[in-house]
């Protein structure tokens, strides 16, 4: 009898200990999230209400903050172009960057992973070194290049120039990422394709490429988002408001007047986040796989 009681006692103690441990883990995990979630919450509340109390408690539902969706933006005397052409500019830039990055890095990554040629290792080191230069320190040199190429102050063509620059900055890292994916494919599979009757090119297209799709997904998302949120290049080189992108537009909502329409700003911010949210919610599994490394076999 007494023995049974002891067992029961130690069991409940073990349970208590387990609960305490989990509680500690949850607390530690949640505390850093609080400020982040508060900011997100502020964005939502602010954008849909006419007034907020304490930053996050809404008072009065309104869609007035979202007026930019159907009317041109007015800031004092200045009128900015409609949001939709600007969204189109941003989308064009992001898609262009992403397309260029995928095209170049998938070909380059395969070559670096699979082909033997002189200077392969130095080339790979050089490529990764390129990634060390942020675009901001290249601004002046890039301006000269854009000007020489006749891409400065040419409206949409300037955006194309920025697309090229941005893609150039993204390609090194993307090439390295995708090279890792190619490395993970055993030679046997490529050889099997060759024996089965493929040329090298056909083997790449029909057998190798389908297996690096998660990697292609990853680099296209990363480069899309990087193009979507590009600020400094557009801000520096694009002077015509018709070719602004969303980040630059948002900047101008803050920059020019002392009075800031927080409701409008948060609504714009939320609008700007939409593609990011869509991407991350649809590709979470894919991205997780990349962070833990390679393709599942």
């Amino acid at each position, binding site marked *: 009898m007494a023995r049974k009681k002891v067992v029961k006692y130690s069991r409940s103690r073990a349970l208590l200990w387990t609960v305490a441990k989990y509680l500690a883990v949850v607390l530690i995990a949640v505390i850093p999230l609080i400020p982040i979630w508060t900011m997100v919450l502020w964005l939502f509340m602010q954008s849909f209400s006419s007034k907020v109390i304490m930053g996050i408690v809404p008072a009065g539902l309104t869609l007035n903050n979202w007026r930019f969706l159907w009317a041109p933006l007015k800031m004092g005397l200045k009128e900015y172009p409609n949001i939709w052409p600007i969204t189109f500019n941003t989308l064009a830039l992001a898609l262009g960057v992403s397309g260029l990055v995928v095209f170049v890095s998938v070909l380059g990554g395969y070559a670096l992973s699979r082909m033997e040629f002189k200077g392969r290792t130095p080339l790979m080191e050089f490529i990764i070194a390129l990634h060390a230069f942020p675009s901001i320190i290249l601004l002046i040199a890039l301006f000269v290049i854009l000007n020489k190429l006749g891409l400065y102050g040419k409206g949409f063509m300037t955006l194309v120039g920025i697309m090229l620059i941005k893609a150039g900055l993204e390609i090194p890292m993307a090439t390295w990422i995708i090279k890792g994916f190619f490395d993970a494919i055993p030679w046997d599979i490529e*050889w*099997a394709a*060759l*024996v089965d*009757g*493929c040329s090298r090119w056909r083997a790449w297209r029909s057998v190798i490429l389908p*297996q690096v799709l998660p990697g292609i997904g990853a680099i296209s998302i990363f480069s899309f988002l990087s193009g979507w949120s590009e600020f400094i290049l557009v801000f520096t080189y694009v002077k015509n408001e018709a070719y602004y992108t969303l980040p630059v537009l948002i900047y101008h909502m803050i920059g020019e007047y002392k009075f800031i329409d927080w409701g409008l700003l948060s609504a714009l911010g939320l609008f700007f986040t939409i593609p990011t949210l869509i991407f991350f919610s649809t590709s979470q599994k894919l991205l997780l796989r990349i962070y833990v490394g390679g393709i599942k076999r």
Partner: protein
Amino acid sequence: MVKVTLKNITKVFGKVVAVNNLNLEVRDGEFVALLGPSGCGKTTTLLMIAGIYRPTKGRIYFDDEDVTFLPPKDRNIGMVFQSYALYPHMTVYDNIAFPLKLKKVPKNEIDKKVREIAKLLRIDNLLNRKPAQLSGGQQQRVALGRALAKEPDVLLLDEPLSNLDAKLRVLMRAELKRLQKELKITTIYVTHDQVEAMSMADRIAVMNAGRLQQYAEPEKLYNKPANIFVAGFIGNPPMNFIDGTVYSKNGRFFFDSGEFTIELSKEIGEIVTSKASEVVMGFRPEHVKISLSEQPNSVEGLVYVVEPLGRDVVVNVKIGSIIVKILASPDLNLEPGQKIWLIFDQRRLHFFDKKSGLSLLV
């Protein structure tokens, strides 16, 4: 079906000579095994026949056509890899159909062929699965199906059974042999498992350190090994080797190991003593009789360890400082420490030159 000929093939990777001046002829419809320890160059040889590696020196012929510089896709070969190398993103059906699609075979013919092959290999119920959903044995059969679908002139198999469990391996061994005889495809089979090679191949090419050691029928490799390497590699448990000298005295011939002396038959003694005096004597564990009493020309020893294998036991016998393995019947009930006498089968003794390792009796 073609005859495959390798002429003076050498393959060098950087400073490593993977294959060294290899000459090999595989007859039309023959089943040849390339046998050797890992790193002996057998897979490299296979990949050269496939066209994936280009030999550094030498020529490869299919019948009389020089294919040395022909890309793999133009050689009409089928190959099964050790890892099977199935295309993970395709179904079993598409895997088997892939080589036919590349050959631009009409769709209805592809369908017919795939189903026919699948039926032959008994995977017709798996056609809609992806490779990841298959067991090792099933994957192996799909890989074989893919290799056979295009009706290759030469079938290359790179350790296709090594990833299967022991039971399935024995089953597939017979299956592969039957299939090869049925389809009469010239087949080259790479393996490090001598049992596989012995049980399946018409001829075996034993390789070591990039060199061909011996190329012969299985029973010839077993009975007349050309050198110490082949003698030691073929057979399980492996052949026993004892260093010693041979000499003649008063017209009789002897082998002296330092620990014991035995008299050799006249015919063996004459040949061996005429070629060398420092020799290595080899005898297989199954070619020695154990006697519990002293016999003429027998060698005394002590039972060291007994390893039961079920049907037989391996008796480790200590002769002075030498330990040899002898295969015996479990009925003998030998105990460690027991005194026994070994009687050698004179016709089954092997003698090798100590320096070159070459057989003195071949």
